């Protein structure tokens, strides 16, 4: 086993174990950054596969993305600052079905695809080739994905802003309790404040 093989197995193990821990932890912030760790391990494998730009960009994007995701989850979940323990799994049956389907699908794809065997030449202009691909034949795909993501970002900002178009966005909402059905944790809903 060469050093490259060893690095590949260690990085794969990190990716799989941290991916599994995402669902076993009880905190949104920890779950986000465990997922980030998993992606960083995958990014390192990308670097080993002679895809330096995609590898580095994955680290960069995942760091920003998981940070923003942690922030937005805390904003949407009304869990004060993400400090309260809460379960990271829901809709278990649907999720198990989706996960099994994805696993089988990806395994079949890996086993039946004719993957290239020749090594990438050391001096191959891989970044230049990627740039020509992104701004050439694949431009429509990437631009559509980009505009869709932008629309999703604008929509999530509109949703999370308190000064919504149709009145305050938290009107009538009730923060979850520490125990099911318990007293609201953190901020008391305004409607109940008036009663007291």
């Amino acid at each position, binding site marked *: 086993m060469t050093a490259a093989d060893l690095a590949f197995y260690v990085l794969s193990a990190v990716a799989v174990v941290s991916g599994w821990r995402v669902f076993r932890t009880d905190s949104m*912030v*920890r779950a986000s*950054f465990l997922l*980030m760790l998993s992606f960083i391990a995958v990014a390192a494998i990308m670097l080993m596969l002679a895809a*330096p*730009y995609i590898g*580095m*960009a994955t*680290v*960069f994007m995942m*760091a*920003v993305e*998981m*940070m*923003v995701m*942690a*922030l937005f989850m805390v904003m949407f979940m009304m869990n004060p*600052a*993400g*400090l309260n323990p809460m379960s990271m799994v829901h809709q278990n049956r649907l999720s198990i079905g989706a996960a099994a389907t994805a696993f089988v699908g990806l395994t079949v794809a890996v086993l039946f695809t004719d993957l290239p065997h020749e090594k990438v030449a050391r001096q191959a202009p891989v*970044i230049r080739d990627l740039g020509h691909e992104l701004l050439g034949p694949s431009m429509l795909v990437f631009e559509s994905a980009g505009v869709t993501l932008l629309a999703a970002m604008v929509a999530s900002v509109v949703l999370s802003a308190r000064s919504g178009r149709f009145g305050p966005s938290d009107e009538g909402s009730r923060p979850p309790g520490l125990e099911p059905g318990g007293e609201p944790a953190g901020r008391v809903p305004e409607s109940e404040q008036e009663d007291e």
Partner: protein
Amino acid sequence: MTAIPLVFALLAAGIWLSALAERFASGRRFPSGTVFAPLLQAARLLSQQSVRTEHPDGLNWVLSPIAYLTLAVAGLSVVPFAPELAVAPLDTGIVLWGACEALTIVAVFLHGWSANSMLPLIGGYRFVAIGLPAMLLSMFVLIAAALPAQSLSVGAIVESQRSLWNVVRQPLGLPLFLLLGLAISLRGPMDYGDAADLSGGTAAEVSGPHRLAWGIARLAMLTAFAAMGASVFLGGYLGPWLPGPVWLALKTAALLLVLTWLGRNLARMPAPRMMAALWLVLLPLSFLDLVIAGVEALP
């Protein structure tokens, strides 16, 4: 291989110089013996006891200063000291630097979050809100600097400045990039993480060796940032008579002093106003910088 000792020498000198500059700028007494003052302060912190909060996230609490320092060293690894003389002369140098910037925001946030205490937590969240847009505009500025070089490698960017430094060719670049430097080293007008109005923000609960590690990491990141800024905008190792590493060290020192002065003398805006300024004024300015670079690069 000679680049590795150079990186650590630059880091040590930068940390020491910025600690001294900080002391000088704060208007404290500055007798001749104070060149050793940072060492004395470090020794004092080392011998202090370490205070723990109630139920911190132990792993992140310990890891965040280490991660912060590691990211500074990693960022410095792509900075060339002379032609072809860098620890990691990567084709994707500025992308690696961008990844270090992004992970720094995560490290500072986790430092605030893991303490399980109110003021550090507010500091962490506030830093993310300001740090992310600051990082975004720094990436546009760096891409603009990469355009004339036609490469993402820091070495190629330095070489592209043989005729004219980027600070002249792209006048908007360096000022916008300095904002990020102030943000990721938590200082002055961009210090929304560790500010005095939160009793020290993410570092409000740390003491002793932990505070020393955090302080060293902040200054290391400042040094790494200054070396990167000097390479991308001030011609890096280029210069007459003196050898390359000396020029890089001089330019890094100059940027360190500028950053310390800015950190001391610019007022900090309230976070919401700074956020509006970043998204509505400074980010469009970074687009303008990119447009200028793009028009210039047209054949």
